[in-house]
């Protein structure tokens, strides 16, 4: 966790951009081929060291979703679909005509939704511990109800080693705590019903015609191995991988291994494309 211990100072810097009436907080890092990075339900703050690892090879565009971080939340916005549209406009604004997209947890849902809308705008797709589909039986939640359990139980599901949870609620500065609380509220707004999924999404994922990598932490108690496999089966060119000794936040518990896996997948894909172009 040395990466977490001393994040580079510039990594905290963000700027605001106005998109469709939403004041969107954007973190932009690195150079190279672009990657749209869509954070999970906890917000982007914990991911910044991981983003820096990815930025060693890529240009990262990482917005705080509406209602998360410092991004505003207009009254009309209440769905993942809305956020996907915001990201479409963000891509237009920043000239991301084709881009890799990496999404985590609910950000994975946004990424998958976005990919069904404009598959031609994507190079590659990486979904880390994604939610968003319902593939199991009606009488069993695909995703455990994170709004109906104690913080202790939730941490057990989220972390391989709950002791490694870097968030210390007791000592967290007031401003960060406020953001954390607001993130949780926006998460509830977006995912309450239908819980953590859009029933339509699984009928649209066949449109995603780019190489797709599904990743989950081996100890993830939120997104099960079975869930990930069934999700991946809905996208034609998808495969799955596991990060050892990680839970629902492999980017936090195993940032180096996770970044390496993501970058390797994107490089391999890029290389394959390059060689394909030569032949």
């Amino acid at each position: 966790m040395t990466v977490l211990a001393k994040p580079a100072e510039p990594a905290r810097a963000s700027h605001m951009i106005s998109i469709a009436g939403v004041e969107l907080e954007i973190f932009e890092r690195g150079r190279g081929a672009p990657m749209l990075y869509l954070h999970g339900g906890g917000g982007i703050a914990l991911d910044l060291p991981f983003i820096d690892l990815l930025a060693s090879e890529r240009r990262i565009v990482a917005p705080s979703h509406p209602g998360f971080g410092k991004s505003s939340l207009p009254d009309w916005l209440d769905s993942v679909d809305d956020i996907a549209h915001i990201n479409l406009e963000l891509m237009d604004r920043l000239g991301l005509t084709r881009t890799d997209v990496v999404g985590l947890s609910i950000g994975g849902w946004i990424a998958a939704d976005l990919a069904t809308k404009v598959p031609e705008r994507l190079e590659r797709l990486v979904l880390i511990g994604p939610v968003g589909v319902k593939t199991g039986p009606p009488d069993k939640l695909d995703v455990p109800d994170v709004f109906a359990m104690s913080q202790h139980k939730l941490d057990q599901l989220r972390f391989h080693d709950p002791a490694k949870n870097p968030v210390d609620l007791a000592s967290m500065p007031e401003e960060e705590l406020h953001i954390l609380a607001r993130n949780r509220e926006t998460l509830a707004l977006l995912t309450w019903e239908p819980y953590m999924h859009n029933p339509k999404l699984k009928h649209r994922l066949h449109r995603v015609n780019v190489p797709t990598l599904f990743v989950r932490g081996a100890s993830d108690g939120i997104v099960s191995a079975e869930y990930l496999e069934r999700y991946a089966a809905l996208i034609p060119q998808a495969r799955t991988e596991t990060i050892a000794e990680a839970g629902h936040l492999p980017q936090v518990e195993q940032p180096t291994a996770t970044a390496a896996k993501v970058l390797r997948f994107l490089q391999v894909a890029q290389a394959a494309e390059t060689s394909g172009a030569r032949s």
Partner: protein
Amino acid sequence: MKAWHFSENAYPYLPPAEEYESIRVSLPNRIYDPKKGAALYDRYIDEWLVAEDEGVEIMLNEHHQTATCVDPAAPLVLAALARLTKTARLLILGNPVANRRQPVRVAEEMAMVDVLSKGRLECGFVRGVPYEVLPANSNPVRMNERQWEAIDLIIKAWTSHDGPVSHEGQFFHHRNINIWPRPYQQPHPPIWVSTTTPGGAGRVGARGYVQATFLTGYRGTPAIYESYRKGWREAGRGHDVPVHRLAYAALVYAGESEAEARSGAEKLLWYMTANKVPLHFCYPPGYVPTPVHAQILRGAAVDQHAANRANATVDKAIEAGIMFAGTPDQVFRQIKQMYDHVGGFGHLLIMGQAGFLEHDETVRGIKTFAREVYPRLKEAFPDTAVSGVREAPLGARVPA
């Protein structure tokens, strides 16, 4: 002052609290014996009928998936009461409209009860306590906005009489609203809204609805009422806020002797001691404002059940102003003290049954109150009084 007998229809036959995580939301209903439950419904309805016989009005409410209040469809009991009673006003406080998917259906139910009762309905709307969002699968975010849109839609449904009207709002969509029956009372039944915060009360005051607060005590109530009065005045309703716009709910037990009163009051404390609910049911994200939510994440929230148990004594409850209990004289004085402290209120909502307060004890409490306290309250606190005039209530003024 009007007094209302309120019973939550509790199911008290539970295993020791240590054996379950929560009395609400997740308590398995195998614990509920329908035969005992049927007897309880008979009994609680009988107690409401006793209240009517004694000249006390009737109030009921609605909760879900809980042993504390086995009345998950209050309009059904209300309909039964509409036929079983003849004179009492019937207050439902209230319809949890932020959790009801079809406000127009609520408008229909209430109009029907109003007609069945020949115009005796007092219609309350509540946002619903936090433990209600899971049973209703109701999003805890933007509940206030949903509640107010629902209230406006219900009023529109009640007051539109010339064929279908429509509503296309943020939360609710109806192309064809044309309810049958329409309400018996015109333009619609009196509206009540319960709020436990000053922020909410200002809005209720601006609308002029009856504002009810529950167990907010000496400490919390003055700011809520003041906010109501401010909202009332700023909306141009005039300077004087009639006391009959304000209601206060407390645990109430009057006994012929102090010993009898104490015994009944002790049993009423079940209301507080039985409410064992874990934190994650108490603070769904979005239910409280973000700064409060942040402090709860920080660990500011305490185990309410433990705190309630530790503090649940008759003396502490009386001292806090959440219970009025004792001999008729004592109860009158306690109510008067609260009345004077908050600037006056026109409705006393009597939580007059809880847990193991048996039928005969409940009935004795109702009768003692009705015969020996209520007449004095009516005389001392006339409905024509103005709230917020602490020094000289209207009823005490010398006519000019």
